[in-house]
């Protein structure tokens, strides 16, 4: 190897060393920065400095491998040429113009080519004139100074951090730690026993409780949990359930003892307390103050009252975990109907337990006097029991029971389930009269032996008229109709063909054999929806009694009168249930609304009419002309039509037939417009759709 090439090779190796060292420094600085970052963020990785070399080594290897492609081997001609070029660049720094002789010579030497003597001399001079030592020093400084400076800064910061920790630890270690009755200096004494005291919130009026050395304590939300122990203050962190971050708790140190407080919430919290290498957990189970539990035991169900009077017993059971302060029954009275309602709220049996007189469980009793509420028919009363506890929050929920509703029935309504006895029907009046009639008839029966027949007959006819009046009154309530009409007598004359489930058989009413469906399918007459069978029996018995009385035979009238009375009584005693009316059910025809439904009719398609051929057009003109002459010259018009008919007989028989109808109409006199129009349509082969009830009609 020539001396020149040897010198260039030395410079190349020096530069390569600079680059390698720079990469190592970069890796080390990165490792230090990582170490510092871990320390700042509080990650305790144990032996921190053991990690550093490994990280630095790994980073260096990664760096070298990643840059292997860029590292030029000294033996490569390009690498030596670049080094020669770098040497010549240093001459520029020394204010000497470069002549690139050195680079050319090195390239030739590296390629194994002989270098001309003159070129070799110039190259050697360039090599000697280059300030290589200074240039290499500058390269080293430029390459190394920043990573070294960064690494040193990281080291200093780490040292400062380590010093702070050491100082803190030393302060803890030299603190005086009392144990029991004696106090002696100790270094980070392990955490010992503690005492837990729970102070409930003031509103609860509950006493404070000291639990001693426990790991788990239950506390009402808002309670103050005081944890205390002996020795220096430990490190305490508080973590709520499901929370990611812990909250530092400042422990207060007082002479020989420490303590910190935790405010119990409505969810559990964990206090992590550590000192001297010992860590303990205290779980504070906070639970919310529950709202009072209220149950309404009486009345046990909703109800409907016939009249707004009566007494309703009320009983409610109230309980609370802390203590009750107030309880009462609450009534909401709603009056009105349709779109107009008025509401008033009433509180009944209000009770309160202030301060220390609070109780946890009680019963509310009372009697609701409906008459005092001034209720009207249709009014609704909602009743519930309400209780409050002592929680001071303005938005505190109160406890309430389920609600019972009472409704006062309207006189005209029949659409609600009535669990109370229904109002007595009007037939009650008849019952009294029937009883009186029976008594009068029995009296007449006993007296008829000493009366003349005419007298008996006159008295009997009087009773018969009263019996007939009662019978008609009963007949009014035998049948209940959908429209509200109830007369059984209104149209039941014999043979009137007016059958809607009832027919007259010799004056009596009898169920039709056509059954109920026949009744409901009747036309304009309102269908019968219910039949009072006992009253039907009473009606017929009254008819028998009336007939006997009309015949002047009161004795024979007594048995049917008794049957009638018994039937009325059965009717009165029957239980009645009024069912709520069903709301109207409207079924929307979706297909119709969307215009996608099936149509059973056929739509008449309208298309352009074909033009008449020449012959038909001529006939059409002649027909129109004849029609226009009808009013002015009837005979001429008739002749024209007749001629036209004759011509059409051969090739257009339908048109000829239509013209025959025209001629017949003209002979009859009157308006012949329709037949002329029809003839013209036949000529033009125009099909018309018949007018039907279905608006779109069908093609004939």
């Amino acid at each position, binding site marked *: 190897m020539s001396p020149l090439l040897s010198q260039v090779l030395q410079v190349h190796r020096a530069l390569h060393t600079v680059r390698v060292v720079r990469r190592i420094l970069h890796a080390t600085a990165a490792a230090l920065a990582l170490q510092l970052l871990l320390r700042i963020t509080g990650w305790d990785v144990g032996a921190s400095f053991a990690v550093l070399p490994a990280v630095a080594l790994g980073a260096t290897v990664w760096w070298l491998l990643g840059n292997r492609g860029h590292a030029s081997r000294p033996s490569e001609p390009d690498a030596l040429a670049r080094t020669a070029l770098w040497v010549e660049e240093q001459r520029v720094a020394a204010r000497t113009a470069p002549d690139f002789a050195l680079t050319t010579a090195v390239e030739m030497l590296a390629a194994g080519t002989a270098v001309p003597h003159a070129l070799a001399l110039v190259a050697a001079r360039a090599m000697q004139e280059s300030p290589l030592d200074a240039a290499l020093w500058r390269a080293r400084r430029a390459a190394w100074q920043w990573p070294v400076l960064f690494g040193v800064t990281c080291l200093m910061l780490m040292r400062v951090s380590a010093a702070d920790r050491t100082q803190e630890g030393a302060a803890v270690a030299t603190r005086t730690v009392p144990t029991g009755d004696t106090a002696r200096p100790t270094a980070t004494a392990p955490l010992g026993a503690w005492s837990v005291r729970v102070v409930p919130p003031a509103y609860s009026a509950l006493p404070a409780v000291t639990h001693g050395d426990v790991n788990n304590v239950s506390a009402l939300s808002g309670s103050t949990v005081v944890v205390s122990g002996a020795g220096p203050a430990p490190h305490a962190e508080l973590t709520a359930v499901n929370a990611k971050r812990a909250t530092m708790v400042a422990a207060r140190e007082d002479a020989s003892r420490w303590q910190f407080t935790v405010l119990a919430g409505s969810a559990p919290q964990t206090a992590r307390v550590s000192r001297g290498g010992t860590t303990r957990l205290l779980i504070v189970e906070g639970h919310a103050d529950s709202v009072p539990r209220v149950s309404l035991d009486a009345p046990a169900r909703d109800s409907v009252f016939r009249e707004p009077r009566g007494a309703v017993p009320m009983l409610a059971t109230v309980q609370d975990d802390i203590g009750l302060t107030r309880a009462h029954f609450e009534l909401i009275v709603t009056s009105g109907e349709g779109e107009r309602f008025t509401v008033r709220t009433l509180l009944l049996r209000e009770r309160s337990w202030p301060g220390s007189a609070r109780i946890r469980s009680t019963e509310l009793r009372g009697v609701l006097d409906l008459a005092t509420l001034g209720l009207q028919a249709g009014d609704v009363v909602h009743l519930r029991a309400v209780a409050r506890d002592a929680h001071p929050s303005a938005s505190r929920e109160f406890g309430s029971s389920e609600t019972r509703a009472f409704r006062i029935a309207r006189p005209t309504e029949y659409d609600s389930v009535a669990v109370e006895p229904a109002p007595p029907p009007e037939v009650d009046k008849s019952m009294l009269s029937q009883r009186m009639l029976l008594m009068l008839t029995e009296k007449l029966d006993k007296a008829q032996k000493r009366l003349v027949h005419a007298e008996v007959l006159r008295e009997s006819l009087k009773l018969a008229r009263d019996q007939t009046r009662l019978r008609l009154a009963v007949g009014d309530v035998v049948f209940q109709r959908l429209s509200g009409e109830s007369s059984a007598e209104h149209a039941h004359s014999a043979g009137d063909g007016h059958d809607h489930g009832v027919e007259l058989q010799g004056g009596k009413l009898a169920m039709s054999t056509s059954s109920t469906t026949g009744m409901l399918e009747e036309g304009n007459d309102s269908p019968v929806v219910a039949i009072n069978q006992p009253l039907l029996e009473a009606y017929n018995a009254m008819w028998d009694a009336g007939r006997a009385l009309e015949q002047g035979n009161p004795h024979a009238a007594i048995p049917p009168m008794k049957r009638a009375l018994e039937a009325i009584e059965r009717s009165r005693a029957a239980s009645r249930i009024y069912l709520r009316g069903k709301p109207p059910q409207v*079924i*929307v025809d979706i297909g119709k*609304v969307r215009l996608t439904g099936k149509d059973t009719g056929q739509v008449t398609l309208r298309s352009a009419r074909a033009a008449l051929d020449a012959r038909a057009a001529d006939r059409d003109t002649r027909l129109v002309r004849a029609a226009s002459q009808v009013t002015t010259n009837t005979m001429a018009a008739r002749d024209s039509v007749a001629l036209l008919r004759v011509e059409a007989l051969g090739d257009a028989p339908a048109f000829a037939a239509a013209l025959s109808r025209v001629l017949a109409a003209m002979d009859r006199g009157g308006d012949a417009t329709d037949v002329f129009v029809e003839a013209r349509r036949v000529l033009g082969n125009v099909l018309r759709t018949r007018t039907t009830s279905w608006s779109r009609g069908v093609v004939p």
Partner: protein
Amino acid sequence: MLYAPFVFATAQYESGDWDSAPLVPANLIDSLARYTSLPVRPQGVTVPLGSEAVFQYPLLYLTGHLPVRFTAREAEVLKQYLERGGMLFVDDHNHDVDGAFNKTAREEIRRVAGPLLPLPNTHELYRSFFVFENGPPTTSHEMNGWGDNLVHEQLDAVVKDGRIRVLFSNKDYSSEWSFHPDNKRFLSVDNTRFGVNIVVYALTR
């Protein structure tokens, strides 16, 4: 049909007159059929609020004049219904903020679903199908001086996770929409269009 048709469900609660607007379901069903392509059942259903059958219906309509007091069972079922994604549309048939229905229904809803808060008139509910630039459409009953004699500018709602769970109206749509759908032809503008928005919102959000 790929999907079960939408069924309009009216909530039947034990207290009060839950059936005070019997024609509203048919009217809204008619509107859904008229304006949308949603598969819809031609007849609504009445479902007891204390029954788990409510879980079959994505939207419940609740109205009345009288006080609303949910039974324990009703409150529990309704709470589950709302948590499972159901939507409750409550309309005050009294249109009276001082009325029994408004006071008691709000109290019950607060217990079951949380407090009702004003719903901004820019809420997507007002653009879910038809666009109502000024929020909920005013009803004729509001302007006629019924009830509290107020025109309520906003609806109230319980919104959770960006979705309306309970929509509360004092505007008395129950009166406004309670007519036979055949009579829509007498209206220049169909006043039930907002009901379509409510249904579409309940089905798509």
